[in-house]
């Protein structure tokens, strides 16, 4: 668990704090998306957690320990760190990059080698092909996979990620988001992820913290932010299509009615309600049959159900 208590950062010479008395508690094993307009203090907040930036005031606890009392170098080896520009070490192979923290921690070579193989497989890179590759030979997406593997190497309980998809081209981005979400779910870490992209925050975050001018404006589940914006700023930030965005958070399976409707078009189980709505509009139909991976119909979803205002999920 990570707890920020009245955390404040006033940069020398700045007229007002970049982060202003921020209180947030992030539950163990969850992903919190820090979001807000450029310059609102997201990166500053994130980098205070691993003490890359020293807070001017306030305290930060990780699992009950005040990190401001720890040796920053030791602290950082227990916190995964992923940045937009990735920052792979260009003179080291993929395996050496991934081995960074285990080596700093003095693991034996055999344990490091085994861990590198395991991580390459986890992030979807064939060890035989990528182990000895140099970073400049990799695509942007492959580099960030290595970046995440490197951050996970010593199995830190906490991961900090600053716009991890920011350098990935838009076509590859969505796929990588899906994969990272799955990887991060499997390793079950307490993750703080900075982003300025609302859809990304909604997709990756169990909870979303919306900042403005260094202050916390709203902190809640993606659905809460979309359905009950705290003020006009949040409402404007999430945009006029927030009802549609809420549908993106939900699966057709949640609205499943029993039975097959003969002649109705189909949609895959696991598709979002937004996709279902688009399919209905496209097909000029009232109902969709929901099909499982084998193509069997497991029920149907109707237009009424899709258009009903859903209850807010906290």
């Amino acid at each position: 668990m990570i707890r920020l208590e009245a955390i404040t950062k006033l940069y020398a010479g700045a007229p007002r704090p970049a982060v202003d008395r921020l209180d947030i508690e992030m539950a163990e094993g969850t992903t919190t998306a820090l979001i807000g307009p450029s310059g609102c203090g997201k990166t500053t907040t994130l980098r205070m957690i691993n003490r890359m930036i020293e807070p001017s005031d306030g305290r930060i606890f990780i699992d009950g320990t005040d990190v401001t009392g720890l040796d920053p170098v030791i602290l950082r080896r227990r916190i995964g760190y992923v940045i937009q520009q990735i920052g792979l070490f260009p003179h080291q192979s993929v395996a050496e990059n991934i081995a960074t923290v285990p080596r700093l921690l003095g693991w034996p070579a055999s344990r490091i080698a085994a861990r590198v193989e395991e991580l390459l497989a986890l992030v979807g890179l064939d060890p035989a092909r990528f182990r000895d590759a140099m970073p400049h030979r990799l695509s942007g997406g492959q580099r960030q996979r290595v970046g995440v593997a490197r951050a996970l190497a010593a199995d830190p309980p906490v991961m900090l990620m600053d716009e991890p998809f920011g350098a990935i081209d838009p076509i590859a981005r969505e796929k990588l988001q899906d994969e990272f979400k799955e990887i991060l779910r499997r390793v079950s870490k307490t993750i703080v992820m900075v982003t300025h992209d609302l859809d990304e925050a909604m997709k990756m975050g169990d909870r979303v913290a919306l900042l403005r001018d260094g202050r916390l404006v709203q902190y809640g589940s993606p659905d809460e932010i979309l359905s009950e914006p705290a003020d006009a700023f949040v409402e404007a930030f999430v945009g006029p299509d927030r009802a549609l965005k809420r549908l993106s958070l939900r699966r057709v399976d949640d609205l499943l009615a029993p039975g097959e409707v003969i002649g109705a078009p189909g949609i895959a189980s696991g598709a979002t309600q937004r996709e279902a709505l688009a399919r209905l509009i496209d097909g000029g139909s009232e109902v969709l049959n929901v099909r499982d991976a084998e193509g069997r119909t497991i029920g149907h979803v109707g237009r009424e159900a899709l258009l009903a205002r859903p209850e807010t999920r906290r």
Partner: protein
Amino acid sequence: MLRWVPTHLPEIGEATLQHLVLVVVSVSIAFAISLVLGIWSARRPRLYAVVMMISGTLFVIPSIALFALLIPLLGLGAKPAIVGLVSYCLLALIRNVALGIRSVPPAVLDAAIGMGYGPVARLWRIELPLALPLIVSGVRIATVTIIGIATVAAYINAGGLGTIIFAGIDQRFPEKILTGALLASAMSVAADLGLSRLESRLRAGWRA
């Protein structure tokens, strides 16, 4: 045509060796000094400006004058010659060490700090390896520079290829002058080529 060279090979060999020793010893000492000063000043702009001003001033003192000025302090021979040659290496070496350290991409440095590298390990394992091509380039420039200047060191009895050249001038004996000059040039070209190749081999592995 060659009358003197074939009968004086040992003498020529010895002068060449002396020359090489003067250069290698001077570059090595300068390298150690420059590593310290370059690393220390790389991210301290004011200190860097002062260091560059001093090493720049040393660099533009005419070599014959510098050697002469060192005689009252250090006498004649190899010692003042090496001190003088070291001072001519500093500008290129310190500048390239500092440039090399500064050439490390900010994201790489940020990642290294964020992963838990302490300052010393970061220097050895990240910053210096990445700075190495530029550092080698500095060594190359310094070496080539002082191979020429070291011929003047014969004037203060430091030996080297300058001895043959000066003797040739005194005796109006062009073959000696040419021999000394050609050997010094060949040494420069060899150092330039060798160190250039080392530099590109270092870069080829990773390309920043």
